[in-house]
């Protein structure tokens, strides 16, 4: 029997392959991509029913409500970030592969952002209109979500890794992760409110960006440690 000669791959193509796999896997389970999005819409639509249709009040609440709904929706899909690969052993192969695990984690977080964060960004203006937000405010809402949701995916990956194969992982995940989401919520929703109050939003947005950079650096580190612990 002869040994096969295989083509060598660069690191970038390995990561691209990992990203492509995540995306195609998710797209084959369309329900799992769409459900958080529908959840986002439903949650946000419940608030006016709860507090009444008074437009001034809704306008005041809009940034906070939309951001909180986005947090919850992003969290819904977090649990399956590693769960399927954990069950079938693919995760073991990733941990044992020559590819740095941190980069694979980034690829996974990126795919989570593309599949749950980005749709939220695109969906937000529609819901914003329901709350009476307009033009400029909608733009700022989208911008803050665009800067904030990748951070949610990155921080969330830590929680997803910690709760792998654990009893009641779903609820536990939210308990672990939601407190860590608070800064993102504050600066994200704050940006829209600050603009409505006639204040500058530069500070908010740069802090969101700083959080993104910080979490892009630290979260993969924590996640890889947590993954190794979960597989032990």
């Amino acid at each position: 029997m002869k040994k096969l000669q295989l083509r060598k791959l660069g690191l970038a193509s390995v990561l691209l392959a990992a990203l492509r796999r995540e995306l195609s896997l998710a797209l084959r389970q369309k329900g799992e991509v769409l459900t958080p999005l529908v959840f986002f819409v439903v949650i946000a639509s419940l608030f006016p029913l709860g507090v009444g249709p008074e437009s001034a009040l809704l306008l005041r609440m809009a940034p906070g409500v939309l951001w909180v709904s986005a947090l919850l929706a992003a969290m819904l899909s977090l649990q399956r970030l590693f769960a399927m690969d954990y069950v079938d052993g693919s995760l073991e192969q990733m941990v044992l592969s020559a590819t740095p695990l941190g980069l694979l984690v980034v690829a996974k977080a990126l795919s989570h952002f593309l599949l749950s964060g980005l749709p939220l960004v695109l969906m937000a203006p529609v819901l914003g209109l329901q709350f009476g937000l307009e033009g400029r405010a909608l733009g700022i809402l989208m911008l803050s979500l665009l800067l904030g949701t990748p951070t949610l995916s990155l921080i969330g990956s830590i929680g997803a890794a910690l709760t792998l194969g654990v009893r009641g992982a779903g609820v536990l995940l939210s308990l672990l992760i939601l407190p860590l989401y608070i800064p993102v919520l504050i600066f994200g929703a704050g940006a829209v409110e600050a603009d409505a109050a006639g204040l500058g939003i530069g500070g908010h947005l740069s802090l969101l960006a700083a959080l993104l950079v910080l979490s892009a650096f630290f979260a993969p580190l924590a996640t890889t440690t947590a993954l190794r612990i979960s597989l032990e």
Partner: protein
Amino acid sequence: MNIRTIHWFKFSAPQNFYFLAGRMWPWFATLAAVLTALGLWISFFVAPTDAQQGEGYRIIFVHVPASQMSMFIYLVMAAWAGFGLAFNTRLSGMMASALAPTGALFAFLSLVTGALWGKPMWGAWWVWDARLTSELILLFLYLGFLALQSSIDDPRRADKACAVLALVGVVNVPIIYFSVKWWNTLHQGASVSLTKSPTMAIPMLWGMLIMVVAFWMYAIAIALVRVRNIILDRERHTEWVKHAVE
């Protein structure tokens, strides 16, 4: 025993620490009791009435130590956790999990006494003051730690997972505090804050200081007793535990 002959790494083995902790905790407990008595006496009989807040300010003698302890214990917990992850010592994880419940209780006490102070001073049980809000989030972090700890069956894995969580938490605490403060100043201008406690007379300061130390001693004594239980439970198959139980 000559203190220089104590080999510190010897005590990082759970079984040695078990006996060391057994000898140490009564001392800390006694200190805690004495200092609490002294602190209470100062808080009620020496410290004068405050000009603005009357007798109501006396709540700070438990509120301030409780909130300080809740933050310190989280730091200490994270330090143990980091040590455990870096050097893979079993004792570190046990210490972290022995500290967590006490830290959570202090956070809870800090919130409730804060509310009991806030009601007569501001007329509301709860205000979204930056300090109180951060304390609430700290309580959430503790609860997450405890929940994760209890939902993983393998204690070694639980220790390590919780260590990662504690470290992530400790990196986030300053960020959370900063963001809450930012949020607070944006939404309500100048508000009464628990940090702006009355202009402190010297006896007040002493009372608070002694109460803080008393709480420290209490926390250490409790953690030592709890870590003894944890060690016994984890090492139940070893010979020395069988001897110790007899």
